[in-house]
């Protein structure tokens, strides 16, 4: 089970190292509220655009080990922007990766941005 250290992730986002950004796909492929899945160095990553803000998290649902999170419905719950796993409907905070139903569980998050018409990720 991947448990992300959310502080570390946030640190990365606020201070992204130059370089290390990988273009994944054209920017228009990621439309509002519809997730897509990318394969980056063997890792399956779910990318979302919500209210013109980009998010990237591990696509593998830690509860089922199936790579389904890009196919969940996005929305907000109590002020947090979340995706619901399509299998058992647990919600994951897109910003932190933390599961709302079980805070001991989280998915990895990745820095993501739009640059020159491309979606770029900083993946491990």
């Amino acid at each position, binding site marked *: 089970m991947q448990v992300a250290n959310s502080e570390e992730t946030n640190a990365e986002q606020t201070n992204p190292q130059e370089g290390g950004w990988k273009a994944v796909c054209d920017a228009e492929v990621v439309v509002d509220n519809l997730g897509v*899945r990318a394969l980056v160095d063997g890792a399956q990553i779910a990318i979302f655009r919500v209210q013109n803000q980009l998010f990237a998290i591990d696509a593998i649902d830690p509860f089922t080990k199936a790579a389904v999170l890009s*196919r969940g419905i*996005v929305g907000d719950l109590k002020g947090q922007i979340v995706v619901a796993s399509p299998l058992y409907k647990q919600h994951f905070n897109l910003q932190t990766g933390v599961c709302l139903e079980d805070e001991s569980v989280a998915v990895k998050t990745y820095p993501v941005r739009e640059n020159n018409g491309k979606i770029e990720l900083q993946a491990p």
Partner: protein
Amino acid sequence: MHKQKVVVVGNGMVGHKFIENILSSEDAQQFEVITFSEEPRLAYDRVQLSSYFSGSTADDLMLTSESYYRENGVAYVLGDKVVEINTDQNQVVTAKGRVETYDKLVLATGSYPFVPPIPGREQPHCLVYRTIEDLEAIMASAEQSKVGVVVGGGLLGLEAANALKNLGLETHVVEFAPRLMAVQLDEGGGQLLRKKIENLDVNVHTEKNTQEIVAGENRRYRMNFADGSHLETDMILFSAGIRPQDELAREFGLEMGERGGIVVNNFCQTSVDNVYAIGECALWNNRIFGLVAPGYQMAKVAAAHIAGGEGDFTGADMSTKLKLLGVDVASIGDAQGRTPGALSFVYQDGINEIYKRLVVSADGKKLLGAVLVGEAEDYGNLLQICLNGMELPEAPEQLIVPQTDGGAGMAMGVDALPEGATICTCHEVTKGTICSAVADGATTIGEIKSCTKAGTGCGGCVALATQLVNSELTKLGVEVNTDICEHFPHTRQELYHIVRVEKIKSFEELVAKHGRGLGCDICKPAVASILASCWNNYIMDESLAPLQDTNDYFMANMQKNGTYSIVPRVAGGEISPDKLIAMGEVAKKFNLYTKITGGQRIDLFGAQLHDLPAIWKELVDAGFETGHAYGKAVRTVKSCVGSTWCRYGVLDSVGMAIKIEERYKGLRAPHKLKFAVSGCTRECAEAQSKDVGVIATENGWSLYTCGNGGMKPRHADLFATGLDDETLIRYIDRFLMFYVRTADRLQRTSVWMDNLEGGLDYLRKVIIDDKLGVCEELENEMQHVVGTYQCEWKTTLNDEQKLKRFRTFVNSDKKDSTVVYVQERDQIRPANEAEIVSFVSDSGAKAEA
């Protein structure tokens, strides 16, 4: 140890209740029970007898079954009457000569209809209204009649009149007294009831004393009245009251009342040792109780007395609430104000035809009785106030005048009721019982009905019980919040209404006008479903796609490993060899696991996202359409082979199943919908376990509604019988659209109906009688959905942009490496966790992928 033998004479509602009570007593094993029924069947629900005319069968009315009796060791003898009691030797003898010895004898012989001694009353087509056999005779007679008269304008008489009217006869009610329901109503109430009934084309003749029945000039008979007038008719139904069936007791020396009835004490014991009498044959304190609730109380008391328990019978409340010819009528306590010094409050609304009267004590503090005609919603509340002797508010009239602010009015509130107050008089369920059911986790009236039986008798207490449930939930801190989620302060039903009325076409518009936030996985699919039910636009449209659950979005069913299964439509379960081969070839080519579903279709498992378009291309080319197995939508119509092939088949069930499936395919609803059509009553298609079940009979189609399998299986209820194709489709149109319109999110039809106030009867009134005047609208709405159907897969295959959504990865053509299969019984299946670990380590792949 010697078992005590209990002989129960009569297996009507009360006799059966007695047996149930004995069986549930602590010492049930000590008793050996045998019951005799003069009728050819065991106990059935005589209170609901009139539903026999609106489609219920004798089976629907049964209160018990032969297998239940057998399993519980109750012996029964049908079609044989006890004709002799030998109280010295403790024996009874039947008409067929059977002799039975008893330790305890219980007479539950009931009553018979009183037929006034009018010359000519014994001719054909002069009938009574009491048993299923009587009803069969009435139906047979009605087929040869145009005009029918009911003699007697009491409660049963008006029900009989309703039956005649439903059988299509010109209907008359002839009453000796100056008003209808003279026992229960006062003059004002009786007058309004008459007016309302006459508006329904039932002719009412009061103060008519029939002198003779002779041959008619224009019709079969002519009834001559004492005042010189006459009435011509083809058939006559006598419903002029009941008389206790007491001849057995009379003949063999039990103490009788002056005007009949077997005298009993507070324990329902007769004058002879070890002999009890209960129900309508028993006379307690010089009174006969002609309602079922007091009969049930007597059954309980007698059973307790025999089994060594406690309890006595000290009279019963004769208050009643019912719908007569669609008119709400209720009578409580001293309805006529006969108590010395009693005062009245009367509320009359000439426009809406409502009459209410409160009878209060001289000091204005206690409610003695009430009459309600035209609207009886206050019944439960008033009855409780009356029975519990609760103090009235300072202005008691507030209890019956309508509230202008639309509030619940001055109802004293369920909170004011004592714990012991009986909410459901039919099943003697107290407030305390319901409260503890709520404390144990029941949250809906449907659950209360199944765990306490409250509200399952006459149904008169449902409104009050619902209030009680909600009030208890609030007290327990369970917020009775019916909002669909945090984004909308509305129920699904309200959202549906808003979407319809404001012609809203997108989630953004709805949330902007009526909600807040971004939405979530609860409200988005619910709104998507509402939009689809209303406007039926292509679900992959830009604005609709993000609302869909992954199943709807990719038009396939996600399985546990993130792959999809595919179910093409096989309408009615009929498939040609060519199509079967085509499907097999697709499955083989894409290495899919295949399985036959419960709905007579074929499910193809194991497709990855990027496989879906190619698979569907081949399926569409072979003539298949999407099966909507992924949607909260109409799924399948299962069928048996029907009259085309089957030697028992009565109608073409496959043809009808295909017709139904083609009509409703793609209809999105609050939950999935399953159908079935059987070609005869052998019911091979199992239609009675479906939301909509259709069964062929000699007289046309029978329609069953609101059944389901699954976690909580439920038999469907018989909704209507003798339907032709057109009427059947019309009823299903209305039923489905009314469900779509009013159900909660993810509420199957069964739970939906259980929570509709008035249940099945109400549903029939809406759909068959158009009580709400919405049927045309419902049909038009359905027509729109039917007319705008498209195969979503076919449309998608023609749209390059949409097909791009089916890529597994946006940046790679690789497959999902988490999807691992192993072989089992010649097909693939997902590898389990242990198998994946060994697979991954064998191949040396990175574990975190």
